[in-house]
């Protein structure tokens, strides 16, 4: 019997599922862990570690092991995606109106029209300095970071590993970034419904995943109006503007949910024409959805779609 709980954290819906005697205890321990991570990594919380790091840009700051790991992972993916994954686009994000949590923007709208961009004059993400031995980090003065593009995947990965200590098989999902460890006792794969990005309440198809991760990035979920422009939260670091892409959403299936999370964004931002320029992207399994609801993607993506579902595509 698989047990599950759902709750809201990180401005999104979180779901935990576990099969085994320790399921209930494990899920509550995992929930506490996720709540703690949100306090640590959210840029919207004034007391979070990330907010503190941004506030002290230009100075060395001692950080937790968790933040150090996350920053170093961010640097690796920044390099492996040739800068498409870039946590230093926070100024552009704020300029586009995303300066508060999405829940607040939905309730009250955006604050002001954008000011002049500092994109060309500000330092880049790879100018961050690390002092590993003393666990210290220094952001260059004038740089702000937002780890929203990777923190959710990292939290899901750690949360699933924690939950797996209590049970044989489990799944953790945060806003559609999902990691499955182990397989249910009935031997079947885990089921995942792929949402239609045009109407998220409706489903496009049904996927099955034996174990591992699946993550989706969409330009349709976090949208708002800024003057006459419709904005979304996926900033293309090459332009500093919300990405103009021919796909509405990209779903990546990978052993690592962090990799799936990062590459879903990178492939979506680069789009159909340029994604092949991302190192390693051709080896990934991904599904892209265009504005007509058509599916495309890597050569093997249909292996993960249930046969009964693929008949209707």
């Amino acid at each position, binding site marked *: *019997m*698989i*047990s*599950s*709980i*759902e*709750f809201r954290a990180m*401005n*999104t*819906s979180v*779901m935990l*599922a576990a099969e085994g*005697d*320790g*399921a*209930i*205890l494990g*899920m*509550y321990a995992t*929930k506490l862990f996720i709540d703690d991570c949100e306090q640590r990594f959210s840029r919207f919380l004034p007391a979070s570690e990330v907010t503190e790091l941004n506030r002290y840009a230009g100075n060395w700051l001692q950080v937790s092991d968790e933040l150090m790991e996350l920053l170093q992972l961010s640097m690796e993916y920044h390099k492996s995606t040739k800068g498409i994954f870039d946590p230093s686009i926070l100024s552009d994000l704020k300029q586009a109106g995303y300066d508060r949590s999405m829940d607040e923007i939905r309730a009250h709208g955006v604050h002001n029209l954008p000011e002049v961009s500092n994109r060309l004059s500000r330092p880049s993400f790879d100018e961050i300095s690390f002092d590993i031995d003393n666990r210290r980090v220094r952001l260059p003065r004038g740089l702000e970071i937002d780890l929203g593009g990777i923190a*959710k995947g990292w939290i899901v990965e750690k949360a699933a590993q924690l939950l797996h200590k209590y049970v044989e098989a489990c*799944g953790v*999902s*945060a*806003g*559609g*970034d*999902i990691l499955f460890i182990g397989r249910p006792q009935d031997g079947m794969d*885990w*089921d*995942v*419904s*792929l*949402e*239609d*990005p045009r109407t*998220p309440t409706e*489903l496009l198809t049904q*996927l099955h995943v034996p174990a591992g991760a*699946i*993550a*989706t*990035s*969409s330009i*349709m*979920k*976090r949208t708002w109006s800024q003057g006459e422009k419709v904005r979304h939260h996926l900033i293309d670091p090459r332009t500093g503007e919300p990405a103009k892409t021919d796909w509405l*959403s990209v*779903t990546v299936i990978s052993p690592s949910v962090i990799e799936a999370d990062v590459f*879903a964004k990178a492939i979506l931002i680069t789009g159909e024409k340029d994604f092949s320029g991302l190192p390693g992207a051709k080896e990934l399994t991904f599904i892209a959805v265009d504005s007509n609801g058509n599916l495309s993607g890597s050569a093997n993506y249909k292996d993960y779609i249930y046969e009964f579902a693929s008949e209707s595509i």
Partner: protein
Amino acid sequence: MKFLKIGIRFWITITSVLSFLTGWIMLAHAPKPTQSSSGLTTVVTPLPTLEPLNQLSTFGSDDDNFQNQPLFNVQPNTRAQFRPAFRTGGS
């Protein structure tokens, strides 16, 4: 002095007798207590019937089902199901 003592005793006796008679007369002429009205009815509220408590042994048993029961009655709700409905679509 002897006459004074006799006078005081006489005075105490007389005032005691007079006080007793005055009280007797006053009580005799006082209005009688009101009888209870026959129009009033007495309402008896029944005691609530409580559900019997679970046996303490339930919590200490080796029953496997106990592992799947929620520990707390607060959100988030825990539910058991065959397949959890995972969805992916971005956030």
